[in-house]
């Protein structure tokens, strides 16, 4: 099920949450809506779900070519996973998952046995067999999240929407679930959209990343594409670590810390290199980060491998030469 969004505007009172937003989501893709708080990404997700409606006007939402802009959430066939899961507290896991099927109108509703079967299948899919009689408060965060997912999938949605699916979880659990979600998506091939403010998550998981800011879409593309070719300083800075260097002619150049070369001060090439002193050295981990203060007062972060650090034998207070070349620098 492809999704086509065109010219969506959304205002809450005087606050403009979405401004002329248009987007194409290909069938079967895993798309990330990435942006800081207040960028409009959750609002957009909720409008796609039918939990909010766009302002009157030219705005349209199409599911596989069909206009669903005025269709209520229940009839759009979307599965929604809420940020805090919104599990039904007083129901068991099995009752939660089977809920969507149990509220179908009489003629379409499966029998109790069929619902139970489907619930068990889904529990197996999300690797929570045996937990069917538990209640939400007896589950861990990661387990609740998977129940929420199973519940959304039970109604056989055509689109899966996830609102900050890993936001409430510990870092380790988050990493594991991220991998799991990617595999899961590859297995079932359902068109999926998720909202996140974590660029690492978006770049790692998605087929397509939509960077949003201040109610608008800044850039759309494959993760590698937008990382290598950001179209604005905002996108550049949001997607990874940044160094901003100003030239003598007032030009600002952006360069990633891992693309900066560091040499002994003695090896400096005066034409291309600058001299600086290492203010701070952080080397607990696979990468060493050097915080360098240039002669002209500007600061620069440099990332090198631990091996390089050892080979160079550098320490805090050392003088070094910093080299960047035009291919690693970006100017806007």
């Amino acid at each position, binding site marked *: 099920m492809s999704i086509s969004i065109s010219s969506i505007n959304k205002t809450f009172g005087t606050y403009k949450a979405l401004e002329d937003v248009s987007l194409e989501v290909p069938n079967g893709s895993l798309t990330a809506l990435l942006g800081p708080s207040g960028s409009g990404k959750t609002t957009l997700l909720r409008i796609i*779900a*039918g*939990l909010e409606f766009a302002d009157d006007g030219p705005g349209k939402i199409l599911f596989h070519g069909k206009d669903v802009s005025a269709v*209520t*959430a*229940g*009839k759009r066939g*979307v*599965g*929604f996973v*809420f940020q*805090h899961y*919104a*599990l*039904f*507290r*007083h129901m068991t896991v099995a009752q939660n998952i089977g*809920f*969507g099927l149990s*509220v*179908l109108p009489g003629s379409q509703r499966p029998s109790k046995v069929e619902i139970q079967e489907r619930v068990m299948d889904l529990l197996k899919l999300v690797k929570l067999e045996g937990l069917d009689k538990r*209640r939400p*408060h*007896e589950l861990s965060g990661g387990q609740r999240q998977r129940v929420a997912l199973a*519940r*959304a999938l*039970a*109604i056989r949605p055509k689109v899966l929407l996830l609102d900050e699916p890993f936001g409430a979880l510990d870092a380790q659990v988050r990493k594991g679930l991220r991998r799991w979600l990617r595999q899961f998506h590859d297995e079932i091939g359902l068109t999926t959209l998720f909202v996140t403010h974590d660029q690492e998550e978006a770049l790692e998981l998605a087929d397509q990343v939509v960077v949003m800011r201040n109610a608008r879409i800044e850039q759309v593309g494959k993760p590698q594409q937008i990382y290598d070719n950001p179209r604005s300083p905002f996108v550049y800075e949001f997607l990874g670590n940044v160094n901003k260097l100003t030239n003598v002619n007032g030009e600002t150049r952006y360069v990633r810390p891992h693309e900066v070369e560091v040499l002994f001060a003695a090896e400096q090439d005066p034409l291309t290199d600058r001299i600086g002193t290492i203010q701070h050295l952080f080397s607990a981990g696979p990468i060493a980060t050097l915080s360098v203060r240039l002669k002209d007062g500007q600061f620069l972060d440099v990332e090198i491998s631990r091996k390089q650090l050892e080979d160079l034998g550098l320490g805090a207070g050392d003088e070094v030469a910093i080299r960047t070349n035009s291919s690693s620098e970006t100017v806007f």
Partner: protein
Amino acid sequence: MKNRPVTTESPIVRVLLITSAVIILTLFLLMPLFAVFAEAFRRGWEVFLASLHDDAALSAIKLTLIAAAVSVPLNTLFGLSAAWLVTKFRFRGRSFLLSMIDLPFAVSPVIAGLVWVLLFGAQGWFGPWLAERDIQIIFALPGIILATVFVTFPFVARELIPLMEAQGSDQEEAGVTLGASGWQIFRRITLPNIKWGLLYGVLLCNARAMGEFGAVSVVSGHIRGKTNTLPLHVEVLYNEYQFSAAFACATLLALLALLTLGLKSLLEQISGHKAGGH
């Protein structure tokens, strides 16, 4: 320095506060309560039971029960609808509705009764219209019910609104995305989540409905045996110097109060246990 949690007071302050609380409780609550029972049994068991078996007393009890039986379900229905509306939706006039719900609390009970007299009394706005059709509202059961409904209006709503506000709409929205209808969402998602708060509100509503004096006094006309509720009957007996009888009837109301408090504690305990798991 003795080791005690940072948030407790020093022993002296604690003793002082607890002692004052106990003194106030005893003076204003326990002594009067004790006095009611003492006076009621002063002339012995037989007089006590006779006072309650008296025709007028029985009719007063019956009237009180009827007034509660009508106003509690009505206000529960109203409270549920209002709380649902106000907490799950945003609409123009929402704040106005919230203020209106609190109106019966702000108004003196005498006024609460008077408005009905002004509307439906013989000289009231609808007086002549009602007289023509031989419909008696004031100084009759309908008037009593109206007054009771008015003063117990807010109880269920006020109990539910903060509860539902705190619970948010996430679960209801989940229900929407899963295709449930409004009624299904209410019955299967909202209602189970609020059941303890609902019971609590109904309990308080009932206690007030049975105990209301001021508003009902104005509309009832005090027709012995016909339009006296139990609280009114107590007043009538007292004014006729039938103290033991008056206090005997009063014990019924006191027992109602104790029962209400007991159930309230029980509800708090149960719901506390349920909520504790989160």
